[in-house]
């Protein structure tokens, strides 16, 4: 049996989630899924991930670095030109 007090219900009586927050959440879920999906097969650089997923490159950088911060992605190595890091799923 869950014995925790649900204080969330108290704040729900006075606050509503803004449409912006809901939209951002949806966007993050979609992009996260897309990036993690494309990395399932092999490690890739940010431009490669952007090309595979049709995401803007800057947006890919932001979300990939966020996924790295959250511990879902890690660095595999660097490309032959020492320009772009290759990222893979963290096992």
């Amino acid at each position, binding site marked *: 049996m*869950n014995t*925790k*007090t*649900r*204080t*969330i*219900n*108290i*704040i*729900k009586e006075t*606050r509503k*989630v*803004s449409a912006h*927050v*809901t939209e*951002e*959440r949806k966007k*993050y*879920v979609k992009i996260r899924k897309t990036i993690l999906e494309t990395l399932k097969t092999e490690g890739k*650089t*940010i*431009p490669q991930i*952007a090309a595979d997923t049709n995401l803007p*490159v*800057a947006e*890919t*950088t*932001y*979300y*990939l*670095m*966020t996924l*790295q*911060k*959250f511990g879902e992605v890690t*660095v595999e190595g*660097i490309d032959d030109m*020492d*320009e*772009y*890091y290759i990222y893979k799923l963290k096992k």
Partner: protein
Amino acid sequence: MNTQYDVLVVGAGIAGEESALKLADMGFRVLLIEKEPSIGGKMILLSKVFPTLDCAACITTPKVSETARHPNITLLTLTEADSIIKENNGSFSVTLKKHPRYVIEKDCTGCQECETVCPSIVDDQFQFNLVARKAVYIPFNIANPRVALIDIENCMLCGSCEQKCPSNAIDFSQKEEIIQVKVNAVIVATGFNLFDPTLIPRYGFGKYKNVITSMQMERELAPTRPFNNILRPSDGKTPDKIAYIFCTGSRDQTCGNAICSQVCCMYSTKQAQLLMGALPMADITMYYINIRAFGKGFNEFYMQAKDMGAKYVKGKVASVSEKENGNLILRYEDIATGKVTESEHDLVVLSVGLLANPAITSVFKDETLEIDASKYIKQPELLQSPALTSIKGVFVAGTATAPMDIPDTIMSAGAAAAETSGYLKQLS
């Protein structure tokens, strides 16, 4: 909570901490308030300090810990002064506003389990928006108190964090608290604001992804960096031709800040040295008006950067434009040749200036806390007693008075503590 203190210190950056510690060590009871969720101010977010290249976190965290644990210091985070009224007997009646954390501070262990289940993300302001954070979060690894908080504006109100928290620390029933205290003296240590470079649109900040601020570069260089290495935000490329534009928002009447920010020449020079260490193949070019290397060891530090290979070009940058590949074209007048020249870089860092933070003045209700022409707290007796302000019993410390570097801030805070101590002794 106690309602009587000897001193209220407003702001828990390095100046506020130093003043609070000095007074607490003398036996005074200090109430230290900070509007952010962690103490440490801006210094705790820096990579290294100039000119010694010591680790900023290694210097500041012992002081932060000492402040948080001192028996004579009561620390309130997420707290702002709402009003300060001087009474007839010389003491001050203070009304504080403590914003809810939605986490019970004493119960949170800092385990970050709540973050793993939070579905909501938002720009991480402590990484200067280079990555995201969760709506429930610990501000940064060395935050003090290392306690989570909930950004209620960006919360999905799903309650997952509350279910996950192993110590039952989440409390959505918390509300804003109004706290009344009486103090005998006040130290204003509210620090500075950073210049917003979107006010100079010709530099392209906010429009071109590879134009970043010096604080963003500071985070990229720090051990707790947002990326895995120093990368440009547009595409994650390792930059190899980096430009610094000095005096962005300083010494420039057109953007409302005519004075020198004192630290930009040296922090940019520091970053150049760190970049040359981290990216040995990178070219670093510094576009400057004048180099102000006035402090102890500063000129030697500047010469060291030049010897390491940093290129200093005397000339004000007129504009920045972007190429298709994300590289940036800087148009500037090279003072040495007198020619208008263009050069290409793959990352541009704006050495943003320091601005006054005069918001505290509106808190004083019956007397005026005067400010100077640059909107810093006025020091009526600058040469004899620089910690005095226009209100008897109110003192000022650190960059609330003017732009200054870390050693000068510490000295200023020590002077404010000494001045306050003398005042309190006279009162008693």
